[in-house]
Each structure stands twice: as structure tokens, then as C-alpha cells.
């Protein structure tokens, strides 16, 4: 493995007891709690409160808990660990109460102060949150890893020893990572001083679905962009969701530094995973204040969104058709919805002949990253997903489509459908008359 692959994998990154997270500790969110006028809109949007009796809902989790903390030194309630960090409450609140910021800091505080660092739960959460650290190893021996991970004994052990549900199959690792492919390819094929993007591929499209990352490169090069692939760490999404704020902070620091350097170089930042872009755009500025954090957030875009705004994407696709794809059952991930991106994929596929995307409704898929992997959440996760599975079943399509890696795992798990990424369809449409470049 080269350094470029794993820029932050040095010895200091071993699993050590978590440090106090200074910025979140100092953060006083209580004034935000005063904006709450108790309308309960957030509660009616929470997929967990709808199916899980134990969960008190976002209004309690956010403003009420912060109010209690002001009155006396109340401890964070353990139910915060049941929040899946889907962030639906955050975008629902008409009064702009910073709910997800409250949940993230409460979770961090709970894990820091109330969860034993030797408990099975902590170790398991740490492993799930730091999936990226295991991935390089597996990627070095992908076939062995896929074989071992697929064994029922491994899954059984996972459940017994770690509390990782044995109901799910681990996603397969690609035999060649995106970064390996990129290096072998010799990097960018298009040089352009005036049009550059820095690609934030995230972990999943590097290790598991490099075809998505390759599609992004081809699509952007087609429009004449020079693609940079800066060194990068995990976006932090699974770390926020598990209250591992110190891990997230370290990852974010690397990313902000590298991406800021790319901005300096004249590039805009592009992500293909909706949770990665959400994290950089919203959670970084809410939780950290490294130099350039705001700048990086404001200049990070979703891959399709950027092309829609900066190129005549629809004009380019006019008359384009694709073969080899059936119609899609499209699920908009919560984190895309929160960024106002929920409609764009269906709109785009509308323009392309030969393939349609049927929106399967606005429910949450229920997996929310690492949430649905935990044995104790598996049932809740599947109950939340039921509405989406139903709608996928009745949609006129047998292939799924979504931007989020974990939503795609859930879609596949609940329906058996094969799941694709919109960039793959866009690539096929743009290159329909040309043989695929390897």
C-alpha cells in the first residue's frame, strides 16, 4: 500500500482510548434549544420513533435534553445511541433548531463519559466506525477476505462476539481498488487549467464499487474537466453516528487540509456518495473549526448537481439512449434529501431514452450506515425499511438505484434486487455510441 492510498494510516492511529473532544465539549447549543417552539414536526419525521417504543424521539433528544442540561447537570440519556443519524429531523424543523448538531455532540458526550471503553458495544462500534481501516487489508487480499467474510461461521462469530448482525452479508471487496486503477491508468487523461475537480471518492467506491468512481472520472473527463484525486480519509459519517468524535475529527482535519489545497489549485470538490457530501457540507462546519472548513463546505458538490449547474447536462443528454439497463426503482437517501438533491436523479433519467426511474417514496431505507449492522438494531432497521421494500416491490422495475452505499445494501438485502449508482447510468448514456474505455 502506498501513502497516497492511506494518507493517515500511521502508527498513531491505533485504537487508543478516545480523547476529550475539545470543540464539541465547549460548544454551547443551549441557545439553539430556545428556538424550539415544541411543534413536534421533528417527531413526526423520525423513522425510529415510528417503529421503536424505546426511542423518545428528536424533540427530547435535542432541545429538551439541552434544556435539562441547563437546569442541572443532567447526564445524556442513553437513548441517543438509538438515533440513526438519518438527519431527517434536522431538515424538518421549521424553526432551524440545530438538531443533528445536538445529537452528534450528545452522542459524543455519551460515548466519552458513559460507555466503557472495554465494552463489547464500544469495541464493536469502534470497528464499524473505522471500517476504512479494515478495508485496506481486505483489499490487499480481496478474494480471501470475501471468502472469509462470506462464511457463515464468520457471521455467526460476528454476532456472538461483537454484536454485528448475522442476518446481513458483508459487501464484497473489489479485486482492484479505484486508487490502484487510477494509478495504473496514469492519473488524469484530461489536463485543463480552467476546469478542475477534486474527487472525494470516499471509502466505499474505492474499496467496494470502483465502477462508480471510474464512471465519475469518465463522465467528468467527457465534459473536459481535469480530475484530481487528492489523498483523503473517511468522510467521518460512520464516526459521527457512533459518537466517535475524536476519530471523526482526525479524519476531517486531513480531508479539510487536502481539499482546501485542491481548492487553492483551482478545483471544486465533487463527491459521489450523498453521506460523504453531507458530512463535508454540513457536519464539518457544525462540529469543527479548522481553517478553511467553511470554504471547503461551500465548494463541495454532489456529482450530478455540479454538472447540472455548470454544464448543459440536459442538452448533452437530449436524444441519448442507453441499453443494457432495465427501469429502476429509485430511492433517494435521507442525506440526499437533506441537501435538496432528492428529485434530480429521476429528472435526469427522464431525459434519457430507454430507461426510467420510478421513485419509491420518501421513506427512510432504515439502515443508516452502520446502524442496521448492529444486532440490537437489525429488527428496527428492517421495520423502517418495510415501506421502501413494499414500494420497490410494486414499482415497475427490478433493479434498484441510489447514491448511498449503505442504502444500496439495505435495498439489496430487503428485495434481492441488484443496485446501481446514477453515475453508472449517466456514463452509459454519454458513451452509448462508443466502446467503453477500460
Amino acid at each position: 500500500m502506498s501513502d497516497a492510498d492511506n494518507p493517515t494510516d500511521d502508527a498513531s492511529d491505533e485504537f487508543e482510548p478516545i480523547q476529550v473532544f475539545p470543540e464539541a465539549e465547549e460548544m454551547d447549543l443551549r441557545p439553539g434549544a430556545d428556538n424550539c417552539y415544541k411543534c413536534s414536526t421533528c417527531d413526526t419525521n423520525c423513522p425510529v420513533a415510528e417503529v421503536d417504543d424505546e426511542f423518545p424521539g428528536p424533540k427530547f433528544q435535542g432541545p429538551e435534553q439541552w434544556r435539562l442540561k441547563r437546569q442541572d447537570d443532567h447526564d445524556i440519556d442513553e437513548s441517543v445511541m438509538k438515533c440513526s443519524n438519518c438527519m431527517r429531523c434536522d431538515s424538518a424543523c421549521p424553526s432551524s433548531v440545530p438538531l443533528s448538531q445536538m445529537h452528534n455532540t450528545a452522542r459524543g458526550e455519551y460515548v466519552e463519559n458513559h460507555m466503557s471503553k472495554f465494552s463489547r458495544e464500544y469495541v464493536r462500534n469502534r470497528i464499524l466506525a473505522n471500517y476504512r481501516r479494515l478495508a485496506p487489508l481486505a483489499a490487499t487480499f480481496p478474494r480471501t477476505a470475501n471468502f472469509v467474510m462470506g462464511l457463515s461461521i464468520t457471521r455467526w462469530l460476528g454476532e456472538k462476539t461483537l454484536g454485528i448482525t448475522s442476518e446481513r452479508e458483508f459487501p464484497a471487496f473489489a479485486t482492484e481498488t479505484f486508487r490502484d486503477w487510477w494509478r495504473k491508468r496514469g492519473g488524469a487523461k484530461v489536463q485543463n487549467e480552467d476546469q478542475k475537480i477534486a474527487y472525494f471518492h470516499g471509502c466505499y467506491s474505492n474499496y467496494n464499487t470502483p465502477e462508480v468512481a471510474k464512471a465519475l472520472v469518465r463522465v467528468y473527463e467527457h465534459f473536459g474537466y481535469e480530475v484530481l484525486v487528492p489523498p483523503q480519509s473517511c468522510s467521518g459519517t460512520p464516526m459521527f453516528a457512533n459518537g466517535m468524535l475524536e476519530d471523526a475529527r482526525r479524519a476531517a482535519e486531513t480531508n479539510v487540509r487536502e481539499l482546501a489545497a485542491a481548492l487553492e489549485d483551482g478545483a471544486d470538490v465533487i463527491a459521489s456518495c450523498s453521506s460523504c457530501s453531507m458530512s463535508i457540507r454540513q457536519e464539518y462546519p457544525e462540529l469543527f473549526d479548522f481553517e478553511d472548513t467553511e470554504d471547503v463546505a461551500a465548494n463541495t458538490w454532489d456529482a450530478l448537481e455540479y454538472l447540472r449547474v455548470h454544464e448543459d447536462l440536459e442538452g448533452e443528454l437530449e436524444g441519448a439512449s442507453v441499453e443494457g439497463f432495465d427501469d429502476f426503482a429509485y430511492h433517494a437517501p435521507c442525506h440526499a434529501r437533506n441537501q435538496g438533491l432528492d428529485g434530480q436523479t429521476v429528472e435526469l433519467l427522464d431525459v434519457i431514452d430507454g430507461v426510467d426511474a420510478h421513485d419509491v417514496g420518501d421513506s427512510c431505507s432504515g439502515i443508516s450506515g452502520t446502524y442496521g449492522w448492529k444486532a440490537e438494531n437489525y429488527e428496527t432497521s428492517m421495520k423502517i425499511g418495510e415501506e421502501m421494500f413494499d414500494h420497490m416491490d410494486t414499482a415497475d422495475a427490478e433493479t434498484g438505484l441510489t447514491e448511498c452505499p449503505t442504502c444500496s445494501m439495505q435495498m439489496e438485502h430487503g428485495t434481492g434486487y441488484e443496485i446501481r449508482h446514477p453515475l453508472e447510468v449517466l456514463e452509459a448514456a454519454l458513451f452509448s455510441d462508443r466502446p467503453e474505455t477500460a
Partner: protein
Amino acid sequence: MAIEDDVLVIGGGLAGATAALAAAERDVRVRLVTYKQSTLRHASGLIDVLGYAPTDDGPLTNPYDALESLPDSHPYRLVGEAAIRKALAFFDELAGAAYAGSHTDANALVPTAAGTIKPTARYPTATAPGLASDRRDVLLVGFETLPGFDAPLAAAHLEAAGVPFDVRGATCSFPGIRRDDAKVTRYAHLLDVDEAIAVDAGEIGVRAALIEAVEGHLEGEARVGFPALLGDEHADEVRTDLADGLGVDVFEVPMGPPSLPGIRLEDLLYDALEDAGVRVTSGVPVVEYETAGASEDRIDHVVVDRNGAQVPHRATQYVLATGGLVGKGVQSERQRVYEPIFDCHVSHADDRYEWFVDGVFDEQPYARFGLSADGELRPLDADGKPEFRNLRAAGSVLGGYDYAAEKSGSGVSLATGYVAGTHAGEAVDEVIR
């Protein structure tokens, strides 16, 4: 490149959704951009046209008879009676079997969770068997874990209001729910999926368990009213099952916020938007606008803010439906009330102390704050001229009425949404030709 459409509607509440649907009646491309969730989720799901008039004390029997008594600047006077009727017909078509009340001009009288009687023009089918004009006796059922609906108290209030039937209230526990702050969506979900719950004799579905819990309270009443949480996606099925099991008519009593009938209405509208091909972008606000070159009176494009990134959206016609002080379409600072996107003129007293009058129950001037408009609903500047040629406004961003006092909220949103959307759609055609 801006994202291009023919009509751009800003705000996705009842007014914005209606405007988008009305515009989409023509062969034009319509987009709706909306930020946070609208007041539909708080509202009762009832469509009030006009419950009380400024000149009358009691509830109105027929809202149309009182239109003449409204001030000239009232949105209803701007659009006129014919347009209000067309807008309601448009809604009836849209709602289909989900709403009732279109058979008459007269207001229906709907019992509420507080035990008051509300005059309204259209009501969900789920509420229909509960009308106060019906003479059959009623049992109201509340749940121990649901403080928002005290059935015995509501029954007492209704009796005191002199309803023409006997009404009793009973409280039971809701099968499968223990926590006292369970969300209405939790109740609805349990009924929707008819989740199996453990009882002494094994497991039964929640619907059957609820029937069992209520049966014993019935004393020959012909209809039973539940708080409005009987299912969401499968609400009709839930109600039918309960009615069959109990052998009586079952209806829903509208509740305070958050409200399932409001959520269902929202779903109905957003499904209709999808069917009509309206493109919806939600979760992001419109923050500012640019005019086209030299012509100051024409909006060229607006800017949507996405966590700091600016995404331009261009259309030929725009509709502003961002809500009032609650929806944040109109905002207030110490010294002024303003409309934040286009800075349209909002008339109000210069002296802050004149915004309020002393009595809590008196008519509050601030409730009428909002934009004034012409007959096409183009917002007017301080001199009474349209602010922009291609901007119209709808819903509670408009001033000149007090929806809470008049009970006219949804009616004004529907009527003005319909008129603004229709004009916007037609104006696109003019430009194209």
C-alpha cells in the same frame, strides 16, 4: 448554467403546492422549491373557507354570503367569488374520495379534540361520520397515553355546546403503547401494519386488540370517535376494520399539532405533484434574486442556497408562497416587518407598539401583516404598483386577513394558490408564443 423551468414556485405548503398544480394544468415545466416543512403538518387537515366574518358574532352558515363584508384588501376580495369556487372545485377533483363536503355551500360543523365545533368547508372522509349535524349518539374514545385528547372532557364540552345528540367519553389504554410520549406516527404505524402484540392468550393484531378494548365501553351508540391517528398509508383499511369489528360507524376527531390528517393531506398533494410532472426540490431555501439587465421589474433568476453553495434557478414566471410569520415568509425585527427574498413591500405601522393591542382575544394587527397584491396577485410596492412583472404571491405571505380569527387559512391558501398558479402558467404561454 441555471437550472431552467417555466414556472418556479417558492414554498411548498398548501398555497405553493396548489399554485404548482394549477400552473401544471398547462403544458409548461413547473418546479417547486421548498425549505423546511410547511404548516400542513400542524394544521387540522380541514379546509376552512370562512368560519367567522368581521361583522358577525356567530359561526357562518354560508361563507359565500359573507364575502361582501370583508375589507377590500382581503385576498378573497382580490380574487373574487368565482375564483374561490373554481379553486375548491380544483381541490375536490384532486382529493377525490379522500375529502367530503363538496355537496353544499354551507359550512359543515366538525367536533374538535377540545370539544368545540368548527365550521369548515371541506373535511377528510375519515371525519365525515362525526359531523355535529348528525343526530346519532356518539362515544368518544381517548387513550391514557395521549394527553392531547381527553375524551370525557371533550364530550362534556360538546354537550355544553348543545349538540343534538348524546355524547359520552371513555378512556382506555392503547394496545402496544406504554410510553406516555409516544408520537402520533407510532400509533398510526402500529395500526397501519396491524402489528402483532402479546396478550394473555398469545398474540393478536393491534386492530383486534383495540376493538376488544373499546367494545366494553359501547352502550348502544351508533358511532365512535377516535383521535385522528387511525393509520397513515392504510388509513381507510384501518377505519373499515375498526368499524366492522365494533359494528358502528368510526370517525376521526381532528387533533392539535402535529396532525396526521395534515400529514395525509401533504402526502396527497405531493403525490399529485409527482403525477403532474412538477419537479420538487426540498430542503434548501431561495435566498435572493437577480433582475434581467436593465429591466428592474423583471426577475431573471433566483438563487438557492445549499450550505453556502449558490445554485441559480431561472424561470419565466415566479410564485412566492413562503408562508407568514410561522412559515418565515414574512419576518420581523424590532423595527420592521419584511419579506426576506424579494424585499417586497409589507405595510405595517411604524410604531412597534401599534403592532399589538392589549387583549389577547382582540384582533391583532400583526396577524394581518403581509404583502398587498393586485387582482392577479402580483405584490404591490408602497405606491401600489407591481413590484415585478413576473412575480405573484399566494397563501399566508399575503396580508389583509387574519386566518386564525376568521378560520380562513386553508381556503385563502387554496384560492390564492390557484389564482397565482393559473396566471403564472398562462403568462408563460404568452411569452412562448
